[in-house]
């Protein structure tokens, strides 16, 4: 199975909800739709499922045009944020229900339920009713039902959002293994960059109904093609610094000067945005080339092993992610250090023009 969207758009009135999306997902892959609320994740899934039809563009399954084919005629399974199970059926019957509808034989049902329930660690719960299960177990049951259909396309719309933090962590770890065993195309929507990174696979970065980048998740994280993708993949939020290059100097007003290392001297004179992640902003000087900047502490958050220090740098808000406990007082003036070898530089159209590697290569 291969799923392809070619130049797909949807319009409601005069407003585009999805704008010119082209994507191809291969069999046996996990594809994450990552973006904020209203970025178009659910709209795209509804198009992929056949629940909605595009205003323009085509959708292909294994090369066949399926645009306009109703959801009932496609081999699709969906799992939602809310746990949806039949409350009066046992876990066994819940999982078996798609096969019962397909009139599968008793033996086949028993065999497949055994396999899927083993995969999702539901073996010991098969005779329970959904209300006797924890949230995590209920969502596993819904997942099992989606998988047992043998659907070629499985759509998961923020499936872990209603679960406890720790249960999410466990399921996130198990899901890639479960996905790998079935061979279907998996599409998984989430608002959380950390979830995308833990799941791995491929990521589609979405913003206001457009795809801003698509590729292996770790590549989209480490080589964002544009500023909006870099922001979408950053949690804690990305730190940015607007600079102007002129007369062989790169400056943020009169406050910060960026030394022209690596490929930076090759950039034409213009305005740029420098971006770097919070764990690359330091409280002490680690390299001679580090740039010192004065900042005022807005608030310090401590997790027990790390500190998130929110700072104000002449009106800009940045976050420092530092190892250890740093109890800093509000309004305290501190010195922070920027590491140029971790800079992403974006041009005035927010496209990546310099990667950290080309600065560090000196």
């Amino acid at each position, binding site marked *: 199975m291969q799923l392809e969207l070619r130049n797909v758009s949807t319009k409601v009135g005069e407003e585009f909800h999805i704008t010119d999306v082209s994507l191809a997902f291969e069999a046996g892959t996990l594809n994450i739709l990552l973006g*904020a*609320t209203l970025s178009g994740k659910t709209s795209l899934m509804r198009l992929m499922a056949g629940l909605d039809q595009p205003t323009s563009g085509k959708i292909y399954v294994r090369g066949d045009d399926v645009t306009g084919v109703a959801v009932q005629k496609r081999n699709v399974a969906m799992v939602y944020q809310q746990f949806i199970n039949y409350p009066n059926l046992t876990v066994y019957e819940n999982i078996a229900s798609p096969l019962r509808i397909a009139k599968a034989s008793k033996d086949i049902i028993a065999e497949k339920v055994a396999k899927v329930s083993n995969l999702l660690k539901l073996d010991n719960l098969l005779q329970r009713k959904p209300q006797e299960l*924890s*949230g995590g177990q209920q969502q596993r049951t819904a997942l099992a039902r989606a998988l047992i259909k043998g659907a070629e396309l499985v759509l998961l719309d923020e499936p872990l959002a209603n679960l*406890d*933090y*720790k*249960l999410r*962590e466990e399921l996130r770890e198990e899901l890639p293994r479960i996905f790998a065993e079935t061979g279907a195309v998996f599409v998984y929507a989430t*608002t*959380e*960059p*950390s979830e995308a*990174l*833990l799941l*791995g696979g491929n990521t589609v970065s979405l913003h206001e109904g457009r795809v801003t980048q698509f590729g292996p998740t*770790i590549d989209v*994280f*480490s080589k964002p093609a544009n500023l909006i993708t870099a*922001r979408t*993949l*950053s*949690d*804690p*939020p990305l730190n940015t610094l607007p600079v102007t290059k002129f007369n062989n100097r790169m400056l943020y007003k009169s406050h910060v000067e960026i030394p022209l290392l690596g490929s930076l001297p090759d950039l034409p004179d213009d305005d740029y945005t420098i971006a770097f*992640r919070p*764990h690359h902003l330091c409280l002490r000087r680690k390299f001679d080339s580090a740039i010192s900047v004065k900042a005022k502490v*807005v*608030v310090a*958050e*401590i*997790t*027990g*092993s790390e500190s*998130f220090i*929110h700072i104000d740098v002449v009106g800009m808000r940045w*976050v420092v*992610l530092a190892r250890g*406990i740093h109890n800093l007082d*509000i309004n305290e003036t501190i010195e922070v250090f920027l590491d140029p070898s971790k800079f992403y530089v974006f041009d005035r159209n927010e496209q990546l023009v310099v990667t950290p590697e080309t600065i560090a290569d000196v």
Partner: protein
Amino acid sequence: MANITLKDIAHSYTGESDNPEDFALKKLNLTWRDGGAYALLGPSGCGKTTLLNIISGLLHPTRGEVRFDDRDITNQPTEERNIAQIFQFPVIYDTMTVFQNLAFPLKNRGRSGKEIEPRVIELAGILGLEKDLYTKAQHLTADSKQKISLGRGLIRKSVNAILFDEPLTVIDPQLKWELRSQLKFLHKKFGFTMIYVTHDQTEALTFADEVIVMYEGSIVQVGTPEALFEKPEHTFVGYFIGSPGMNVCPCELQKDRILVEGHELVLNSTYETVDPSAKIEVGIRPEHLTLAPPDTNGLPVKIIRVDDIGRHKIVRVAIKEREFNIVASDLSEMTGGMCSLIFDIDHTHMYVNDHLISGERK
């Protein structure tokens, strides 16, 4: 403003009972000092919301007393307790402007316009709502609405405490950062007693000066974020806090040595002999384990999996059936599948029947 004391509080939803199993909240004693920032952290069903509702008066405890300073207020209704509560979903008046919403709790208590206006404007400024002051709430986004809810909780200076029940559930990750830091800032600025209920460790640890970890109706540890991270008193705390949680592995203990799958490790303390029928485990956080080339002085382990989650890598290793997670940033020295697992002995803890034991430091 008052210290809040819970004295021998216990609660059963089915009324007084001799059966300890009936109690959703087992007997507990706690004191919250005026002006503190506290978090109640635990999985679904651990009793944290029950406890919150007992403080607010929404629930009358089966046993025990609630005191504000020396006053027993167990029988006082919610409206007389002078407590503000903020829920998962914004509770605001959609057809009122932001200003009217924020002013409402003061107006309701007959305060003058002169007193109300500066307070509303100050608070709106801190919450970043000043440009929407005269916009109707229904036109705002989910995070702005939740900011109004926060503002309504904070507007009165005389409240005894502000209670938060998972207030960031509906907020996108990147906006969570902003709201969290605002909340922390507001706490530092106004000095209200704040009690924050959540299953999300990051929210609890970053918000609170002191975190109360709950599990199956009981408190398993009360401590600073640092203490919970560095010295979990119960294996549940080790598991629940940290991502991934603490590695907990069965072992044999002999004075200052442990045997893990037949391999000896020397500890920094000497322990008294433990009842051989007890469950003895060693606990160590993934951050306190390192990998070295094979045949270094550590446990011989096999690398099973490496997940690159951007900021660092999570490595899963195994010695026979026992698995460990390690947080690592650089694996360039690990060439083959085998390596040595090195314990940081100053962060290695011993647990007997899930409880931390202390030995005599060598």
